[in-house]
């Protein structure tokens, strides 16, 4: 048992993923495989990512990485769309791809006996997608329907508006699922070119967790993806940093026929690589998560009764992801909810969190680890996280100590570095009557 600090949970960190139980191998082609065995249930999860995301979308083609990822499973020279899904669904498995801002992630699940079926589909669709024209046309139409729904959703529109305000001139200003105008123009040839240029083994990570011997799992991945070549040869250029706006800017989008307005308010935050990330994450928990939404939940939901949800989030990621507050309120209460949130942000940068808040939130961060690492999905997510951010195989064993070492001053410093209550982006989407 590792005693980290009086009053904080003491956990048996040896039960967490660590160098003794994680197998990691970098294949000759640059692909990295991680595996951890767990025989307590008969299933297996694969999880991973590759270096192709919305920031790679060419100008005017927002949504290209996203639709490329979605189209991978629409056919290969040796398997049709129907055959791919028949192989997966007939064994009760799943496999899916999705593009985010800076990478394309995938996740699959199957009974352990079917790992090879899953890996052979993964290999086929990653390496040899054929992007059949009829399939791409159909997929585009599905995406356009989804975008039409998104564009009439108050939460999504508030987020889109926030991104435009907070990330002017930065690649993060574009939504990863694109716009109707751009997605409508994307053709099979463009998807094929994007795949050729960005998909390859270098920078790709695959984690396998479940009822399969870890060494055997690595061999299985190697036999399917070890001979893969192509893709980007040079490291990706760094994602630019982003300063907050010179003064607070507001944007409002009117969406008729709605009963509620959504608010997104915040600023560019630290990347996951920034040493301030963990103090910021702990501070964010105090600000708008702990219990039922932390200080912001107390002020906006519990005390004022203004909203069903009002919380903060810190994106992290490889670039300056947003640090934001999100709330859904009656249109008449939007200004009051914003004012209460601004007061909390001011307090957050004016004075350190209390020793009590620090202790509670450290205990929360540490104590929730066993739950996060309970399932194969949770462990696979942890392995991918370790590799993506170079955290080290012993990261989850070190984690209680890292959290216990964070001070009130470090949290205040991180808050002041990233949040200036007079330099925010504030976006509101809702019905008429919502004040601007």
């Amino acid at each position, binding site marked *: 048992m590792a005693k980290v600090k009086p009053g904080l949970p003491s956990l048996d960190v040896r039960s967490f993923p660590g160098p003794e139980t994680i197998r990691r191998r970098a294949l000759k082609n640059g692909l990295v495989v991680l595996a951890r065995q767990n025989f307590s*249930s008969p299933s297996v999860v694969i999880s991973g990512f590759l270096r192709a995301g919305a920031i790679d979308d060419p100008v005017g083609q927002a949504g290209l990485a996203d639709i490329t990822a979605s189209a991978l499973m629409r056919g290969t020279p040796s398997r049709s769309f129907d055959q791919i899904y028949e192989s997966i669904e007939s064994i*009760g498995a799943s496999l899916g791809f999705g593009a985010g801002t800076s990478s394309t992630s995938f996740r699959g699940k199957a009974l352990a006996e079917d790992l090879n079926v899953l890996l052979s589909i993964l290999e086929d669709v990653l390496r040899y997608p054929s992007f059949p024209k009829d399939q791409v046309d159909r997929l585009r139409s599905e995406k356009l329907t989804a975008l039409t729904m998104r564009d009439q959703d108050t939460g999504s529109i508030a987020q889109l508006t926030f991104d435009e305000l907070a990330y002017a001139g930065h690649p993060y200003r574009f939504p990863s699922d694109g716009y109707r105008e751009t997605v409508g123009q994307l053709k099979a040839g463009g998807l094929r070119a994007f795949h050729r240029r960005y998909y390859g083994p270098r920078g790709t990570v695959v984690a396998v967790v479940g009822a399969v011997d870890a060494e055997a799992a690595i061999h299985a991945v190697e036999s399917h993806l070890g001979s893969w070549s192509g893709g980007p040869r040079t490291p990706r250029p760094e994602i630019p940093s982003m300063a907050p706006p010179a003064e607070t800017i507001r944007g409002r989008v009117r969406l008729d026929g709605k*009963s509620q307005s959504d608010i997104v308010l915040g600023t560019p935050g630290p990347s996951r690589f920034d040493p301030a990330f963990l103090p910021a994450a702990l501070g964010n928990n105090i600000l708008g998560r702990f*219990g039922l939404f932390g200080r912001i939940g107390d002020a906006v939901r519990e005390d004022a009764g203004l909203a069903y949800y009002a919380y903060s989030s810190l994106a992290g990621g490889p670039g300056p992801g947003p640090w934001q507050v999100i709330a859904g309120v009656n249109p008449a209460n939007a200004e009051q909810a914003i004012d209460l949130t601004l007061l909390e942000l001011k307090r957050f940068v004016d004075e350190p969190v209390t020793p009590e808040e620090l*202790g509670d939130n450290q205990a929360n961060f540490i104590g929730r680890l066993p*739950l996060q690492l309970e399932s194969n999905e949770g462990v696979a997510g942890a392995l991918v996280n370790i590799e993506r951010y170079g955290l080290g195989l012993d990261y989850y064993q070190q984690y209680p100590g890292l959290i216990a070492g964070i001070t009130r001053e470090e949290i205040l410093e991180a808050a002041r570095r990233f949040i200036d209550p007079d330099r925010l982006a504030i976006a509101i989407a809702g019905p008429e009557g919502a004040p601007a």
Partner: protein
Amino acid sequence: MSQNGGSITKTRLRNGLEVRLKEIHTAPLISSWIWYRVGSRNERQGTTGVSHWVEHMQFKGTPDFPAGVLDRAISRDGGIWNAMTWVDWTAYFETMPADKIDLGLRLEADRMMSSLFEEAEVDSERTVIISERQGHENEPTFRLAEEIQAAAFRVHPYHHEVIGDMADLERMTREDLYQHYRRFYTPANAVLAVAGDFRTRPMLENIRALFKDIPGVERPEPQVRPEPAQRGEKRVTVEGVEETTHLEVAYHAPKANDPDFFALAVLDSVLAGASNLNMFGSGIPNKTSRLYRSLVAGDIAASVQGQLSATIDPHLYSIEITVRPDRTAEEALAVLDWELDRVVNEALTVDEVEKAIKQARALFAYGSESITNQAFWMGYSEMFADYAWFETYLDRLSAVTAVDVLSIAQKYLVASNRVVGIYRPKNGAQRG
């Protein structure tokens, strides 16, 4: 080695509280759930939504655990806790590090009868709940589903949404809430299910000590008016400014305890893909299902899904279709009807039935990874049947034949037994 190998201990305290315990030693966690047999099914006009609102008030404190204290104590220990209200039940759970679960148990024993329901807290929660409802109303699919439910149930309280009607949320009083709480939050009306890293005997002793002094009163009589058979197809239309057309077709369906339920689960899997009955964890795709092939691969819809839920009284089997902008609800309905005619006229293939069973088997295996999900099933199954329903589910599904499916398709999938609901853009398709 298998997590499912362990048997469960069932007992009943003298005051009527049913207790279910299952030792699982794969992670240092314990998940505790308390289930009350109360939901929108137990509500009447004037106080619709009261069960859900009571659930909110259960987080507002007791003399021993004032509001903020609970939240802080559980979050501090790294636990998760939450609650949910459905048509037949209200459930509260805490999943915590094994050595901390005592707090969760003490809290549940305490708030079974000592919640304060302070007037000021009721007032402030009123606006929170209205805001929750307004958030739902932002979704055209919610507005459509609410109308379909109201049309499908003229007499039975499944008529209204769990969140309640706005008129009632605006007017309900503290007294309405408190009466409902006192009537339904009793040991004999509850099931406590605990799974995880503990030894059964000391756990049971602890539970007995915490709950035994809560007075036992008789279980409240359910006063539920059965829904008469529907006498012809009903249609509802909802209009709004959102530009995407939705079609939802809902058939009156068997209750969970009806043998027909299992054949309908197989049919749902073949038509619209396997439904994931687990509360936690991901499902599997439905791209080889019949309705996906004809509607989505047939260029009519952007998505289709089936929805079958396990309930005390007969509820609905719904098929929800998001129509592509270049198509109409009528085109989608014509294709849907063509597919439904097929299952009414010809038996499924043996392969289709086997695939549905393999999918259910895989989903059950995935569900066993999470201790929280295992504890969930121990109580959830008791709300509409009993734990044997869950334990024998795969066997009963495996016993379903293509002929069984044909006969339930003929019984339930008839037009006179359904409500067809369409959400239509008010001004025709418009690009914004």
